[in-house]
């Protein structure tokens, strides 16, 4: 692995994204519009907005980065550039970390904007303050990126890649504790929920909403999400064989 190659790859991925202005605009503006919408849906119930607002700040970057990365990596696989790159000194780790770095930077921009709107004008009340919120949201975005890189190996077309969102992400969303408290779930569902990385991402945000301090629960959530990122990247590298049929 080489920092020079990781940076070169990240720069290239960002250059590709910069050419696609509409995607950049959608990535940055859509979370803001959704937060605005949510705020006015719950205009009579500010407590509900306070409860779901912070978890949504974690969900937006997770969802968008998952989609964007899985399609971007699928293109790399199907356009022949991946095969070409694997005959060069570029390592698999250089490629995957380059993607993670590029989309991680986009996630920082997306999260800072969304958090600024939610915590500022929309009056979202988060006990822990903005810094921890942004840190956890960016980590969640990296989780989306890492899972997107991994799952792109199992899609042959962009249609399939997009279907991984309902197939792979929605079950995590239903069981993550946002729609129903995890304590109230039947035991098998609770176990399943405990096995999903998104559960920890959302739980972390819920903890930050109610507690101002870096509690052991929050630290556990951060560590679990970070470990899932690394595991997904390592598995992703295994889906990039140099020799193919």
């Amino acid at each position, binding site marked *: 692995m080489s920092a020079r190659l990781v940076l070169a*790859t990240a720069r290239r991925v960002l250059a590709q994204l910069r050419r696609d202005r509409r995607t950049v605009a959608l990535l940055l503006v859509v979370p803001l519009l959704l937060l605005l919408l949510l705020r006015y849906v719950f205009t009579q119930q500010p407590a509900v907005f306070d409860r779901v607002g912070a978890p949504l700040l974690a969900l937006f970057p997770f969802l968008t980065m998952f989609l964007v990365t899985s399609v971007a990596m699928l293109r790399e696989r199907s356009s022949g550039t991946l095969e070409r790159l694997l005959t060069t000194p570029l390592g698999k780790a250089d490629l995957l970390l380059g993607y993670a770095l590029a989309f991680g930077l986009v996630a920082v921009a997306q999260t800072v904007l969304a958090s600024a709107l939610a915590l500022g004008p929309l009056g979202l009340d988060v006990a822990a303050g903005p810094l921890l919120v942004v840190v956890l949201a960016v980590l969640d975005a990296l989780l989306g990126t890492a899972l997107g890189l991994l799952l792109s190996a199992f899609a042959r077309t962009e249609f399939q890649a997009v279907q991984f969102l309902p197939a792979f992400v929605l079950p995590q969303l239903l069981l993550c504790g946002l729609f129903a408290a995890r304590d109230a779930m039947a035991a098998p569902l609770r176990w399943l929920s405990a096995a999903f990385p998104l559960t920890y991402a959302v739980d972390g945000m819920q903890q930050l909403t109610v507690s101002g301090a870096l509690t052991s629960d929050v630290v556990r959530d951060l560590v679990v999400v970070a470990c899932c990122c690394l595991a997904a990247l390592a598995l992703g590298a295994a889906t990039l064989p140099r020799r193919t049929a």
Partner: protein
Amino acid sequence: MVNSVQVHDLVVRRGGREVLHGVGFALAPGRITGLLGPSGCGKTTLLRALVGVQSGVSGTVTVLGEPAGAPGLRSRVGYVTQAPAVYVDLTVAENLRYFAAVLGAPPGRVEEVLAQVQLQGRTSQGVRTLSGGERARVSLATALLGSPELLVLDEPTVGLDPVLRRDLWALFRALADRGTTILVSSHVMDEAARCDHLLLLREGRVVADEPPAALLRRTGAADVEQAFLAVAEAAA
């Protein structure tokens, strides 16, 4: 003289079907070898085995003294795929700068290869707006960046006008004169005359392995197309 490439008893299976049946040949350094044969005869599979991206391979493939696909070969072998392997959403310059970084090419190398493939004036143009032939030349340029000792080219001149084709062959000749070993595949038999050596491939078997003049003499054919028919009929 040590051969740049030594292939012995190469068998490749793809999807349960044997595509190459015990192929063997050698490539001498500084020579242009044409790999000719009809579409579907196994040319691309053979080239992929040489650069180490083909699975289901048995037999020995030695490239520049190492087993094909060895990590040490990645900066010494240039591979140009049949479909241009370039990022269509980037400009010509952005594509080349990325591959230059990946290959560790020295500064100034981008301008040199752009001149070699005659795309100097197009650096800031998006690859999406280039013609198929121009995209193929960008793809070729990315492989030249690393000044490889072995250049593996899969149908590099498809869709190019005759003038450009002549110029690219002049470039291949200049590279070979400086010691680069070149293996170039084509299904256009008239390109055979520009090669030092020919490998005719038919249904996964090498049916001729000799210089063009020797092939014509042996078969008594007027051109390589006729010679291929004669060899194929003799083998059938």
